[in-house]
Each structure stands twice: as structure tokens, then as C-alpha cells.
């Protein structure tokens, strides 16, 4: 249940996310038994659990959108400012009435990037959507919309922690391969990734640490 092993290869005191005895609540219900883990630089943490176990709520708590019910999460390694994680929700955050290029630009602006056409084009190219840059989002399929949302990852130069909620959803085999490669590259450069996925995560280097969410103990 506890997983304190780390796959970190770097000795530097990079920011680590330390989660201690965390429990999240949705309404009146406590979702899972207390969970503790450490996300080091260069690590991939794969959060697993049954449907409704609280994986999304846990990610939202790690992102700072909700407060935990019990326990604490903290950034260790004495960074000047706790790094702002990149949170990719289950919803794509795309507006139907904007083009692919405009949507990605908007999301990158929010992420604090200096946005130029090169950055946008390169990101779309990585996820195979360069040809649809001027298409309206409402003309795209579910899988294509997912790719647009994921294209933000390809534009990342900073080593932010990534919090990805079901990132492989709706992707075809080629998309899954591209995303796995992008995640692995980020981890190898020293960034950290926390993700949930029902499909097996086909990344070998670094190998994902599994954190399993369990039912909370009754009484």
C-alpha cells in the first residue's frame, strides 16, 4: 500500500512532492484509505484504483484545486517557490468555437509560456495535428481533441511536475505511443509525472511507481 521507493536518478535536491497520509473527500464521503508517497524528479507515479475510488479527486488535490480532508502534501527540497504543476484534466479545456491553433495558444499563455507560432506548430506536429491548425475544435473527433489538449506537453521546456488524468483516453495506438514517448522524455530530463490510467502504462524507462488506492477502512 505504501510505496516509498523512488526511481530518481539525479542527486540534486530538486523539488519533491511529499504526500503523507492523504485522504480526500467528495461531499460527505472519504474516498480512499490514507496514502503516502513521494514524487521525486524524474519519477513517474501511476495512480491506480477502481472507478470512483478518487483518482481524479487526488490529482485535483495535488494540483491545488481542492484541499485534502486528512493528511498533508508538501514540496520538499527547499525550492524558492513551489513549482506550479501542469494539470491535464479529463476534460480537454477546449472551446468549440476556437481553432486548434487559437486553443493551444490560449492554454500555453495560461501556462506562462512566451507563445510564438513556432512553438505552437512544433507542439501540434509532435502530436500529429499540424495539418489541422486552423480547423475549428468542433470539427475534431474525441481523439483529436485529446491530442490538442496533450500538445501542451510537447511545448513544455521547464521541468514542471505533470499531473495527467487519464491522458491515454480516446487515443489510438499511434497517439498512445507518442504520449508515452513524451512522458518518458520528460521524466528522463528530470521532470516528474503523476498520472492515472486504466490502460497499462507502457513506459519502461523510467519504470512507473504504482500507487494503489484502496477503500477506506470502515469505522
Amino acid at each position: 500500500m505504501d510505496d516509498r521507493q523512488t526511481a530518481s536518478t539525479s542527486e540534486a535536491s530538486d523539488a519533491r512532492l511529499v504526500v503523507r497520509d492523504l485522504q480526500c473527500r467528495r461531499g460527505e464521503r472519504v474516498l480512499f484509505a490514507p496514502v503516502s508517497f513521494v514524487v521525486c524528479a524524474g519519477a513517474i507515479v501511476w495512480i491506480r484504483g477502481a472507478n470512483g475510488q478518487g483518482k481524479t479527486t487526488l490529482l485535483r488535490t495535488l494540483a491545488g484545486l481542492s484541499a485534502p480532508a486528512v493528511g498533508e502534501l508538501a514540496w520538499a527540497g527547499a525550492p524558492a517557490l513551489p513549482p506550479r504543476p501542469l494539470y491535464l484534466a479529463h476534460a480537454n479545456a477546449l472551446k468549440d468555437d476556437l481553432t486548434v491553433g487559437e486553443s493551444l495558444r490560449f492554454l500555453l499563455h495560461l501556462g506562462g509560456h512566451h507563445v510564438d507560432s513556432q512553438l505552437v506548430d512544433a507542439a501540434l506536429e509532435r502530436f500529429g495535428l499540424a495539418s489541422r491548425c486552423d480547423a475549428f475544435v468542433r470539427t475534431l473527433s474525441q481523439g483529436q481533441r485529446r491530442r490538442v489538449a496533450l500538445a501542451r506537453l510537447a511545448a513544455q521546456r521547464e521541468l514542471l511536475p505533470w499531473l495527467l488524468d487519464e491522458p491515454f483516453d480516446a487515443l489510438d495506438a499511434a497517439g498512445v505511443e507518442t504520449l508515452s514517448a513524451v512522458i518518458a522524455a520528460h521524466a528522463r530530463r528530470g521532470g516528474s509525472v503523476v498520472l492515472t490510467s486504466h490502460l497499462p502504462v507502457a513506459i519502461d524507462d523510467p519504470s512507473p511507481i504504482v500507487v494503489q488506492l484502496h477503500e477506506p477502512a470502515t469505522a
Partner: protein
Amino acid sequence: MSGTFAVLVGRDLRLAARRRIDAALPIAFFTVAISLFPLGVGPEPQMLRQIAPGVVWVAALLAAMLSVTQLYATDLADGSLEQMLLVPGGRLAIVVAKAASHWLLTGLPLAVAAPVFGLLFDMAPAAIGALVASLVLGTPVLSLLGGLGAALTLGLRSGAVLLILIIVPLCIPALIFGAGAVAAVDAGQSARGHYSLLGAVLIFTAVLAPVATAAALRIATE
């Protein structure tokens, strides 16, 4: 934060430009509502001149209330709101940006179109000027308070009704001072007092409403 603000306002304006018919709805409502009054109460010029400020202001208030109900709802539904809230300073930026874009798309067009309705009601030029000035000062208050209502009722099923019940009473001072300013000018008196009070309401709202709205957004997305 100003960069985030500019990006958010730009996005909302661009989205409105892509849905021009929907964006024109508040103005259409405003026009229809005002045009009904001469038909309903009779065409007597003296009476129309008297009720004109109140009618225009009430119609502006109702148009603002009807157009804020979905202010945050679409962004909540497609996940954009979460992403905006994750930006440092994002909560305040999105509140101010939404109020600003709502005012640019609703309040400002109303203030610009007001002279036409002033002529419809046979108002004196000085009164029309006062009407436009009071709308320019007062419609931002409506946008800010409307944004507060939208955040408070975010995610509720009968949110629109609740929003109107909560926010319309808060808008009454702006309504009274705004319409009162025009009535004062029409009666030949100075409207300075009314403008000052209206300006004070605007400053008060501009300081308090964004903070309250940001808190409401936090609760709604927790």
C-alpha cells in the same frame, strides 16, 4: 496578472465574435423591452419623457441579469475554468476579465445605443447626455454584481432564478442613482450628487465584488 487578464478578455471577445447572434441577444432584449413601453402606456410625450430614464435603466438591469447566467457555466463544463484557476493570480484575473468582457459586450453597447432610445422617448438632449453618462458609470456595476451572482449560482440547476433574486436587490442603488441623475437633469437641477453617489457605488463594487466572486468560484470548483 495583466497578461492573463488580456488573454482572457481577448478570448471572450473572440468567442463572442464567432457567435454574433448570441452576443446580440442582450441588446435585442433591451430594444424589444423598451419599445414595448410606448405601446403599452400610450404615446403621450410628457409621460414618456418622465418614465424614460426608469424604463431604460430597468431594461438595462434586466438585460444584464439575463446575460450573466451562463458567464462561468460553459467554462466550467469544458474544463477551461479549472485551467484558468490554476494560474497564479488566476482567480482574481478571471473574475475581473469576465466582468470586463461582459461589460464590453453588454453594458457598453447599451450605453452607446441609449441616445436612440432617448429620441424614441422624446427626451431633451441634456437628459440624453445624462442617460448615457449614468449608463457608462452604472453598467459596470451591473456586470460586476452579475458576475458575483453567476459565481454564486455556478453549478446549480435553477441558478438563473436564484441569481436574479440575489443580485437584483444589490443593483437597486445603481438603478436609483442612475435613473435619478437623468430625472434631475430633466428637471433642470444638477445631477452632480447623483453622479458622485453612482461613482461611489462603482468604486465600492469594484473593490468588493471581485474578491467575493473569487471566493465563490473557489467554493464552486472545490
